[in-house]
């Protein structure tokens, strides 16, 4: 809280002093901060490139308000672990550098980067902007080997920028937003300028247009919008004005630009669509929801300010909606996932109303999910609202690559809607999707429990994989897309008989799960995950479906516990006893008797029944000698060291082992040390008090 207040103060100061001597000071400060980040991040082993993106790199930054956005490429076998380390460093840097935004660090593996570039228009758009707006700070050139952009694609991609722009605008115009007015003015201006850029690019301008240039050009070119655009431009000049941002002219400006952009449209396509699907009948909804739920949810929706329409949509893909025609009979088996509730409106509802709405809907989760859909999509879909439409400007590929929320909306309106009358075009995108999903199963920690999402993902992956295999077969056109898990089972079994038995079993578990018999399904969860990996190998042989390099980590390590003791007969017993009670028992306990003269070794030997004990004697007095001797007798992969006057907690070894399993580069793991209780003498109390304080502050003590 304090920190953010300081940041706000500095920000306000910078906003007030955007003129000559100061701007160069700010530029220097920004350069310094960027240098610091690069120096720190490039030290992390495995980081191969760092890029600076957006305003600071290419455009005209507004010092004080512009953030430092970074992209880091991690080229390492254990890239997810390195990523964790990079994030950690980033968090440390954020404590020092206020210009680093929270959670805005982009982290990729080079291969992942390439895949995203090749398969997803959404990301290609982001990265292509990168060509123009990113500055390489360190490491290799990202764009060296990437294929050139598809000609004409920029225009379609520019339109996508309307989506985040709308999101910003809606957020900033919300009167309940707690951010200071100058920040909101700045972002609002940015949103409108982005929209201006989108329309200009859609009309054929060079995509390397800066925000300011786009705004100025749009002002000249569209006289009918000039008033609103001027309003937007004024916002940038009067950042300090306390007057609230006038919503209407900005929305009008955005709308005007968006409409123009959509008219200029994505590149023409020859796809013919006949849109003919009846709207979703309420009784279909009752398949998924308890009786009366529909009414309850619609009431909750009606209470939301700013929402103009709310529509239910079963969570099925574009093709599924298209092919099944939302026939209740076809949907009856479609227990694949859930219902999505799509809310369309001009702006996001205020936060408190949203909270109340979410509370009201909690009863129906996870069967019901909510999405907010924006003006842009509603606009985009306006041409398709009629019953039978020939849409020359409409490209299904365009929808396919959109943000999930947007794609959902595409389904929704097309549920009005579609019969697809074309060859199956999306093998590439589907391959990518199936592979991404199947790869999830390589990370067992993602799915601890048989959650609905586990099975839903599994079936979705299986379905996508099946479709790919089908589409690959020469001469075959996909005419029917499996909707329910049962249909997926059938079609996949027909395609690849060798997976049929396993799939059937998983399906059985899935049905149990749906019926609420979770406990039984749990047993199979790990097995299903393994199976998914197998499925991946089966469906994508020879590299094209090869996973990112994740070397399997060992799931178990052996631990030797080493205790050095000297004349502590009275205390050693407690320490050894605490080792007997470990949740994860030690594989070896090495007790080094450092030339004791009392009954220490006898006491240790009495534990031989309960512990895998190795008793060693070292005659040279001194802890390091004794430790080295003990080390020679340790056989485990890990050596846990403990003092003889300590008592270990029950989960001690388990907790210490975890990080080692996670990361092969970790050499040592340390825990917390707390004072032993039940001591009454003054000195001991003094000591405990110190350690209490230390523990409260997270400082380790001896």
């Amino acid at each position: 809280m304090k920190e953010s207040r300081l940041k706000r103060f500095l920000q306000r100061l910078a906003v007030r002093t955007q003129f000559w001597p100061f701007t160069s000071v700010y530029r220097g400060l920004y350069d310094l901060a960027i240098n610091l980040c690069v120096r720190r991040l490039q030290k992390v082993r495995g980081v191969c490139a760092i890029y600076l993106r957006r305003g600071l790199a290419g455009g005209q930054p507004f010092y004080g308000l512009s953030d430092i956005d970074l992209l880091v490429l991690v080229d390492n076998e254990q890239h997810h672990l390195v990523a964790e380390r990079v994030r950690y460093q980033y968090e440390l840097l954020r404590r020092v550098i206020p210009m680093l935004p929270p959670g805005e660090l982009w982290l990729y593996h080079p291969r992942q980067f390439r895949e995203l570039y090749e398969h997803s228009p959404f990301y290609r758009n982001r990265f292509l902007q990168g060509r123009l707006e990113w500055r390489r700070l360190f490491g290799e050139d990202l764009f060296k080997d990437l294929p050139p952009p598809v000609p004409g694609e920029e225009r379609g991609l520019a339109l996508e920028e309307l989506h985040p722009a709308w999101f910003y605008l809606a957020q900033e115009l919300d009167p309940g937003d707690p951010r200071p007015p100058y920040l909101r003015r700045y972002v609002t201006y940015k949103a409108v300028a982005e929209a201006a850029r989108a329309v200009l690019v859609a009309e054929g301008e060079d995509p390397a247009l800066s925000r300011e240039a786009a705004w100025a050009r749009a002002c000249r070119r569209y006289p009918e919008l000039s008033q609103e655009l001027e309003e937007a431009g004024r916002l940038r000049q009067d950042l300090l004005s306390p007057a609230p941002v006038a919503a209407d002219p900005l929305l009008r400006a955005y709308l005007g630009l968006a409409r123009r952009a959509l008219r200029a449209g994505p590149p023409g396509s020859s796809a013919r669509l006949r849109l003919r699907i009846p709207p979703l009948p309420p009784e279909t909804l009752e398949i998924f929801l308890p009786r009366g739920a529909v009414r309850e949810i619609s009431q909750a929706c009606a209470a939301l300010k700013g929402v103009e329409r709310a529509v239910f949509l079963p969570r099925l893909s574009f093709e599924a909606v298209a092919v099944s025609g939302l026939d209740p009979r076809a949907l009856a088996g479609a227990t694949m996932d859930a219902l999505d509730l799509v809310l369309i409106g001009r702006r996001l509802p205020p936060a408190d109303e949203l909270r109340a709405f979410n509370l009201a809907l909690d009863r129906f989760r996870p069967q019901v999910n909510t999405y907010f859909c924006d003006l842009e999509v509603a606009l985009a879909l306006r041409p398709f609202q009629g019953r039978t439409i020939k849409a020359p400007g409409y490209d299904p590929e365009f929808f396919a690559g959109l943000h999930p929320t947007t794609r959902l909306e595409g389904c929704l309106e097309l549920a009005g809607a579609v019969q697809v009358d074309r060859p199956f075009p999306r093998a590439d995108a589907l391959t990518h999707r199936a592979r991404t999903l199947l790869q999830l199963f390589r990370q067992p920690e993602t799915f601890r429990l048989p959650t609905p999402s586990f099975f839903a993902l599994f079936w979705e992956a299986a379905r996508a994989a099946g479709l790919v295999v089908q589409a690959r077969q020469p001469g075959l056109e996909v005419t029917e897309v499996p909707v329910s898990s049962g249909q997926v089972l059938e079609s996949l079994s027909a395609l690849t008989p060798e997976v049929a038995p396993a799939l059937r079993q998983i399906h059985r578990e899935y049905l149990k799960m749906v019926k609420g018999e979770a406990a039984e399904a749990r047993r199979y969860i790990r097995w299903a995950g393994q199976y998914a990996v197998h499925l991946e190998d089966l469906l994508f042989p020879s590299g094209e479906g090869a996973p990112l390099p994740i070397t399997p980590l060992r799931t178990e390590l052996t631990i030797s516990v080493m205790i050095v003791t000297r004349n502590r007969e009275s205390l050693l017993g407690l320490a050894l006893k605490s080792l007997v009670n470990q949740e994860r028992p030690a594989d070896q306990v090495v007790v080094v008797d450092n030339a004791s003269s009392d009954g220490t070794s006898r006491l240790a030997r009495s534990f031989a029944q309960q512990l895998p004990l190795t008793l060693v004697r070292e005659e040279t007095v001194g802890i390091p000698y004794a430790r080295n001797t003990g080390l020679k007798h340790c056989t485990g992969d890990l050596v846990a060291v403990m003092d003889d006057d300590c008592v270990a907690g029950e989960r001690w070894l388990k907790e210490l082992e975890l990080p080692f399993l996670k990361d092969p580069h970790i050499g040592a793991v340390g825990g917390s040390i707390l004072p032993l209780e039940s001591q009454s003498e003054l000195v001991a109390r003094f000591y405990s008090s110190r350690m209490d304080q230390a523990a409260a502050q997270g400082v380790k003590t001896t």
Partner: protein
Amino acid sequence: MIIQILSDLKEEGYLHKGRHPTVAPFFACANVAFRRQALEEIGGFDPQCITGEDCDICARLSGAGWELYTRRDAIVSHRNPADLKALFRKWYGYGRHHPYVFAKHNDRAVEIYLRLLRPVLGERYLCLLYRKSSLGVVLFLTKFLLLHLALLGTVISWLLGWTTVAQVGLGLTAALAVAYAWPDLRRWGLSLGAAFTGIRYVADLALFISAFIGGLTQRMLYFSATVD
């Protein structure tokens, strides 16, 4: 205590190495697990480190490129010294043998000390370092040390007959004494706080004296006294 100053990180996670491999935050050897391969790679414990072997080994591990990780849920309870004599002996031992660790890792870690300006349990350290002299001198400006410096100054100026300076020095000494006792007094009240301050003073004294003796033998003088 020196080792505590070196411990750097509060949350769980990878300990950041900083620019210097020896800035390794350390784990006390009462609660730590090593990869055996890593220990063998760096050649085990240094037999000359009687105390501070934890500091030493963590510095060497991170110097060899291994990552260190804290896991706060791994808990060990530790028994504390029960009487003043044991306490004195314990801190004496730390002070006596730590100069070796410092001397050993000093070559690579000149700037460590300058990074130490951080609050630990309400103490704030300022560290001065003179490496050029034949005796490397590390001076931790703690309340304990400042208190005694002020006291020394007062006595000297009084002996020299500078009354005004002596009066100011006396005031300063009193203020520092209050500052020294204040965290305990505030937390534990008057009687218990005063007792704790006394105990702390004893431990600080033990550490200071032994650090001086140990430092002379290692040609690495350091003035450190704070038992937190």
